[in-house]
C-alpha cells in the first residue's frame, strides 16, 4: 500500500515541481512583498513591514482609475458578450443552410492576428489628418459630428475598449455554446412540442437549464478574463495607459514593475493581491449563485 502511494507521488512529481516553483512559490512571494515597504529586487532589501503599500495604492488616483476601468469593462462586456453569443448560437443551431459558413465567419476573429485586428479597429475608429475613420463617416451620414474615439472623451474610449473586448471574446463563447446546444437531446424538444410548449418557454425551461453548466463556465472564465484585461487596452491606446485614462489593474501592476514609473515591486505586489482578492470574491459569489441555477 505504502509502495503504491509513493509511486503515485512519483508520477505527480513533475507537475507538483513545476506548479510549485512557477506558481505557488511566486504567489507566496508576491504576498510577502506586498507587506514589505520599498522592496528592491536588485539588492533584495526593504525598509520595513506593514500595510503601507496597500494604503499607497488605494490612494493612488491612477490605481483607482484602473479599478474603475476594470469594473466597467467587466460589468459591460461579460453579460453583453455572453448574451450576444447565446443569441448567435441559438440562431446558428436553428438554421440548416449555410450554417457552416456562418460558423466559420463567427470563428474567424479567434484565429486572426492581434495586429491585424488592431489595424482593422484603427480603420474603424482612428482619426487621422486624412480621414475621421469609418465609424465617424457612418455617424456623419446621420448628421452627427465626428468623435475622436482613440484620443477623445473618456466614454468614447471606453466604448471602443468594450466593443473590442466583446468582439474578441465572442468566437470562443459561440463555439462553446453551439456545441452545448447541439448536445441537448432532441427528444426533450419533441416531448415539449407534443405538449404544445411555446418556443420561449422551451428556451427558458429546457434549453437554458440544459446548457447552464457551459453558460456558467463561460461566465466564470469571462469574469476572470475581463479582470485580467490589459493587452487589449495597449493594442488600442498604446503603452501609456495612465495618460490615456484607460489603464486596467493588470496594466497598473505592469507599470509599477516595468513601466515609465517602474521599479516599485512592493506596490505592484499589493495591487496584484488586491486584484486576486477581487477575482476570488467574485468567483465565490458566482459559485454560490450557480448552486441554484446550474443543473449538472
Amino acid at each position, binding site marked *: 500500500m505504502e509502495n503504491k502511494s509513493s509511486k503515485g507521488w512519483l508520477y505527480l512529481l513533475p507537475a507538483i515541481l513545476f506548479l510549485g516553483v512557477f506558481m505557488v512559490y511566486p504567489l507566496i512571494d508576491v504576498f510577502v512583498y506586498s507587506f514589505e515597504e520599498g522592496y528592491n529586487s536588485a539588492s533584495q532589501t526593504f525598509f520595513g513591514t506593514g500595510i503601507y503599500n496597500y494604503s499607497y495604492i488605494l490612494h493612488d488616483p491612477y490605481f483607482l482609475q484602473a479599478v474603475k476601468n476594470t469594473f466597467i469593462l467587466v460589468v459591460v462586456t461579460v453579460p453583453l458578450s455572453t448574451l450576444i453569443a447565446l443569441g448567435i448560437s441559438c440562431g446558428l443551431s436553428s438554421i440548416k443552410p449555410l450554417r457552416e459558413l456562418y460558423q466559420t465567419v463567427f470563428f474567424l476573429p479567434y484565429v486572426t492576428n492581434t495586429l491585424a485586428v488592431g489595424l482593422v479597429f484603427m480603420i474603424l475608429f482612428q482619426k487621422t489628418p486624412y480621414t475621421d475613420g469609418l465609424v465617424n463617416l457612418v455617424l456623419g451620414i446621420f448628421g452627427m459630428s465626428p468623435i475622436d474615439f482613440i484620443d477623445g472623451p473618456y466614454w468614447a474610449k471606453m466604448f471602443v475598449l468594450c466593443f473590442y473586448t466583446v468582439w474578441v471574446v465572442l468566437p470562443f463563447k459561440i463555439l462553446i455554446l453551439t456545441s452545448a446546444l447541439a448536445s441537448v437531446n432532441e427528444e426533450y424538444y419533441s416531448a415539449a*412540442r407534443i405538449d404544445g410548449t411555446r418556443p420561449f418557454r422551451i428556451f427558458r425551461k429546457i434549453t437554458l437549464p440544459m446548457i447552464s453548466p457551459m453558460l456558467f463556465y463561460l461566465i466564470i472564465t469571462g469574469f476572470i478574463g475581463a479582470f485580467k484585461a490589459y493587452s487589449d487596452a495597449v493594442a488600442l491606446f498604446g503603452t501609456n495607459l495612465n495618460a490615456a485614462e484607460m489603464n486596467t489593474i493588470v496594466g497598473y501592476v505592469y507599470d509599477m514593475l516595468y513601466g515609465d514609473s517602474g521599479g516599485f515591486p512592493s506596490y505592484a505586489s499589493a495591487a496584484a493581491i488586491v486584484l486576486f482578492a477581487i477575482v476570488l470574491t467574485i468567483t465565490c459569489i458566482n459559485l454560490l449563485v450557480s448552486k441554484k441555477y446550474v443543473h449538472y
Partner: protein
Amino acid sequence: MKVVLQKLTKIFPARGKGAGGDVVAANCLDFEIPDGELIALLGPSGCGKSTTLNLISGLQKPTSGRIFFGDDDVTDLPPENRGVGLVFQNYALYPHLSVMDNIIFPLGNLRGKDRMSKAEMHEKAHEIAKLVQIDGLMDRKPGELSGGQQQRVAIARALVKMPRVLLLDEPLSNLDARLRLQTREEIKRIQRETKITTVFVTHDQDEAMSISDRIIVMRDGVVQQIGAPQEVYDNPENLFVANFLGTPPINVFSASVKGGFLKIGGDSVLKLKNVPDGGVWAAIRPEGFLLRDDGPFRCKLSRVEVMGRDISVVSENKCSQNPAIRSIIASENRVNTASETVRFALKPHKVYLFDKKTEKRVAFEAE
C-alpha cells in the same frame, strides 16, 4: 377515440452520395384502431413501426394519406393540437425538474380558458401520480429514480393532459427482465382504468402478445397481419409472421407436397387433402411435435433440455432452415438419449404450409 389511418405513406428521400434509393418507412398503411383498445405495433427494427407512431403523434408529416382521430382529420394538425400523449423510449424526462414539475409541465402550456392555477395543477398531478403509483416520489429528480419509476413518471406526464390517444415508443426496452414483466401489467392496468386508446411500439413479441388487445405485425413499412394475439399466432398469414411470433421460434423446413403427402427429406410426415403437388415451406410450432417410437418424421437427436414442466428436444434435419430444431414436449415423455435418431408425429393444426415463392399461407386439410 378511434384512430384511422388511410393509405398512409411516409417516404424518406435518399440522402448523400452513394445512398440507395428512397426509403419507404410506411407503405400505404390502412387500418383502424378501435376506441379504447391497447394496440401493439410489432416488427423487427427498421420495419417502420416507430415512424408509424411518429406519424400518429404528428412529429413527422406523412408523404401521403390521411389520419383521423374519431371523425377529426388530424393529418395537417401540429402535434400539440392533436391531443396525444407520447412516452419516449428513453422517457425524455427533463433532468433538471422534479417529478412534480415534470408532470405539470404540459399543464403549464395551457392558455386561455384552459389555464390552471398552481394548486389545480398540483391536484391534477397528484391524481395521476396516484394512478401510476409514484405519489411518494414527487420531490425527487429523475436521476434519483429507478428505470421503472422513470417510466411511470413519463406515463404520468403523457396522461396528465388527458390525451385522446396515448402513444408509447418501446416502453419496456430499457427495463430489466423482471421489471419488464411487472411494468407491462402496469401499462395494461393503467390503460384499462383510463380507457384511453393506446398504441405501443415493440420488437418483443412476448410483450405484444401478453398485454395487447390486438397486434399489428409490420415488415419493411408494410402491414403483414392485424388481429388478436392468439389469432395471429394460430393463423399466421405468411411465413414472416409465423417466424416472428412465438418463443422458441417456429421450425421451418424446405418441404414438398407429393400425392397427398407432406414430404420433408425422405419422410412422409403428414397426410394432406386439397393441396397441389410442389415445393412448400413447412413451418411447425415447437409444441406441434409428438414423441412417437413409430413416428414418421425422423431427425438426428442432438440433446435434450429439461425445463421442469416441459422438456425441449433439440435435433437436426438437413431440410431445416435453422441448424437446430426445437420441439417442446410434455415432461412425462422419456427420450432415449442413447439413440441417434428421434421420431416425431405432428399435430396437424400446428403445421403451416407456405408458398415457396410468395411465402403466403397455403391452406390444407389433414386426414
